[in-house]
């Protein structure tokens, strides 16, 4: 992976810019000491690191506006940062950039249950949003596994999803409005506590734009009443193919579970060894969760288990209590941790049409043999969003490169069967150079033209999303 050469012009202005920033921000909000800027050298794609030139931690929209106006004047690139949990290197700095972190902007600005929204500063963590309204019976639906740490800012930039988005949608479907600061410092309000945009749907465009169009400082989020209850059923099958067919039949039958999670044998074995959730010994298992009152849950689960029975399951385990539910979820929730225990891994994020699941899993097995690296699969099956984990050894020379090459093959496979490179983690730097496999030049040209409108000088997170060669003339 390549990053652009740092701009000497930008680097030479470090002290002058730092001094100008200190005039508009509290002293402790401007970080220029290389020992401290190192804290921002990477996000959760830890294979790539680069300390920024400066980091700033504004606390208000006005301060963000001041910072951007100055960086714009100085012609210095800015990389916005939430909590730094991006798995795509979205928040990876360049050596000549200012990291703009929104971590200090974590206030709740307004809660309204009649109109069902909450307005927050975007540095607030995802889980805290639900925490703020939970006691009153509400929740914020998008629930990335990283929700304890990740910020709404990053969720909006990446259009993040979670296990429950099968029913409730991803961030873009739950976002009503934003306050955003443009690269030249202008503050805009888009949308608000009402449905649908007046004028063009700029909100839909901003969500998922990976910090390249503006810095989002406040957000109006839709909140929903909590269901009366939820319960999972665990089902084990003899083959990936049969489990895939079962997913299809459940969806076709018209029951809408809140989550359908899929684990394959390598993943089941690793999590068993790690968490000991007591999963059955089988090739593939599904965890399907439904919501409602106890009777409603029974009604849905009876349909789901009847469908599963037609596929000769190895085992069906319906939860009868909170304790049993927790045990069923235990293995799934510790899957990433379990993998981390036994190996280094990279986590991919392609999406495929679910009808292609058996074929894709089979091809993945072949690639695994070919590259000599193990793959484990744990993913959101209801919507075809795969998370293959490729296991490698970081201490072994060339293993990371082999792993990345194999990852690229898997993602291309996802595109070739009618899917896409990223279902929820975003492109960042990780999938940047694969974009030409999914998009034609005219497709990418139009996306870049959108950035031209919002950020004509290409100063916001410029080295991401688009292949460097494709964006070169614009980045100046």
């Amino acid at each position, binding site marked *: 992976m390549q990053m652009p050469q740092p701009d000497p012009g930008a680097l030479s202005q470090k002290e002058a810019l730092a001094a100008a920033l200190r005039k508009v921000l509290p002293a402790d909000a401007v970080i220029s000491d290389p020992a401290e800027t190192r804290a921002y050298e990477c996000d959760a794609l830890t294979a790539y690191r680069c300390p920024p030139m400066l980091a700033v931690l504004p606390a208000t929209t006005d301060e963000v506006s001041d910072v951007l106006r100055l960086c714009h004047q100085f012609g210095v690139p800015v990389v916005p940062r939430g909590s730094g949990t991006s798995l795509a290197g979205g928040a990876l700095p360049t050596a000549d950039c200012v990291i703009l972190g929104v971590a200090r902007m974590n206030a709740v600005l307004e809660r309204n249950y009649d109109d069902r929204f909450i307005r927050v500063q975007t540095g607030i963590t995802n889980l805290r949003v639900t925490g703020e309204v939970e006691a009153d019976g509400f929740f914020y639906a998008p629930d990335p596994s990283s929700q304890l740490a990740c910020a709404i800012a990053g969720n909006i930039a990446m259009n993040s999803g979670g296990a429950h988005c099968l029913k409730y949608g*991803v961030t873009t479907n739950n976002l009503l409005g934003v306050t955003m600061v443009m690269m030249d410092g202008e503050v805009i309000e888009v949308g*608000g506590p009402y449905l649908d945009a007046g*004028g063009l749907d700029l*909100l839909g*465009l901003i*969500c998922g734009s990976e910090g390249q169009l503006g810095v989002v400082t406040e957000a109006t989020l839709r909140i929903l009443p909590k269901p009366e209850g939820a319960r999972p059923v665990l089902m084990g099958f003899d083959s990936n193919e049969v489990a895939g067919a079962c997913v299809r039949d459940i969806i076709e039958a018209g029951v809408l579970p809140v989550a359908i999670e899929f684990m394959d044998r390598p993943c089941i074995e690793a999590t068993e060894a790690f968490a000991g959730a007591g999963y059955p010994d089988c090739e593939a298992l599904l965890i399907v969760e439904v919501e409602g009152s106890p009777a*409603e849950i029974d009604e849905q689960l009876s349909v789901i288990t009847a469908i599963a029975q037609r596929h000769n399951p190895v085992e069906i385990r319906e939860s009868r209590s909170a304790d049993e539910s927790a045990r069923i979820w235990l293995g799934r929730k510790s899957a990433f941790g379990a993998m981390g225990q036994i190996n280094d891994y990279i986590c991919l994020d392609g999406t495929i049409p679910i009808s292609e699941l058996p074929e894709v899993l089979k091809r993945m097995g072949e690639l695994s043999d070919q590259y000599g690296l193990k793959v484990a699969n744990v993913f959101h099956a209801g919507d075809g969003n795969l998370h293959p984990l490729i296991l490698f050894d970081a201490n072994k020379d060339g293993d990371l490169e082999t792993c990345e090459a194999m990852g690229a093959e898997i993602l291309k496979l996802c595109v070739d069967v009618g899917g896409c490179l*990223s279902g929820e983690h975003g*492109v960042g730097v990780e999938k940047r150079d694969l974009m030409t496999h999914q998009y034609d030049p005219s497709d990418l040209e139009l996306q870049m033209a959108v950035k031209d409108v919002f950020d004509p000088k290409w100063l916001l997170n410029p080295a991401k999303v688009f292949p460097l060669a494709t964006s070169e003339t614009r980045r100046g």
Partner: protein
Amino acid sequence: MARPETEAALADLIRGANAPLAIRGGGTRGLTGAGEVVETTGLHGIRLYEPGALTLVAGAGTPLAEIDTILGEKGQRLAFEPMDHRALLGIEGEPTIGGVAAANISGPRRLQVGAARDHMLGIRMVTGSGEVVKNGGRVMKNVTGYDLVKLMAGSHGTLGVLTEVSLKVQAIPEAERTLILRGQDMGAAITDLTRAMGTPFDVSGAAWLADVNGQSERRIRVEGMAGSTAYRAEKLADLLGADTVVEGAESAALWRELRDVTPFADKAGAVWKVSTRPTSAAPLVDALTAQGITADVIADWSGGLLWLRVPDTGDAGGSAIRAEVTRHAGHATLIRANDATRAKIATFHPQPAPLEKIAAGLRQKFDPRGILNPGLMGPALS
């Protein structure tokens, strides 16, 4: 009139054009710009339908009726319940899926499941420069690159001409029930509707009509498996009261009526569509009444969507309505009016200057010559 039968022919046509083009699907939304008419109906046909993956891909000119039929055969539907404007506007023709997408047309269930834009997985289009561009795809989750799908939803043919749309579809639930309560005033009804939306009972429709045979009517809909639907209807009736509970086809007919705003169809007057916060709905209507603008009201989306029927004179109350809506947050679109009214007031709610500037900038990139439905949503950057 031109009616290209392939995407390539459409691209040629747009590339070769040197005067404004009026982009039209079935022409049933009453919103075409000026210029030579280009119809998309030649770009029709279901390209892919996978019921087990809840996905459908169709040419933009495919009649909505054809899509409803093919989905219906598998017990599925478009969850966002797109409105049919024909009765309200007195227009003939066949609505197309491209028109639904380009105008982001939804219906009562929008408050539960999202709008047309939330169900659009991907698009293909021809831009104003005649470039063929795709974005999104046919899978449920996709964050690869910018989401131009959302931008195109509701762009009313001003940025590009859609040639293909892929959609997420939904299984038709086993049962539906509607709770009806008559005679409530608007304030009390909206309070009830917002309360209903705050329950865990998964309400899929929440509306109030000022006048149904001389009485107001509050309607709340639940859908799902039979047992669950009965349970939730009962809970809601206990909580909020109901004069009558109807189910099945009888319930469906009530929501079709709301979806298409048919109560206003054979009554004179201009019709406004207002999107605002539910708790603003009643105060907003009161404020208008105080200014001498008496409106016949249908409130949908628990008050978040107001249909206002007002006398079609002057600007049809437009400046007062827009001022109130802006004060409360939201936007107002003129859906039905005579030509004299339309000459006095813009169809779409003017956006704040910085947003107009971005929109104009986008139009300039997508349609540099300003030939696609020019002026329909706002001026291009000159």
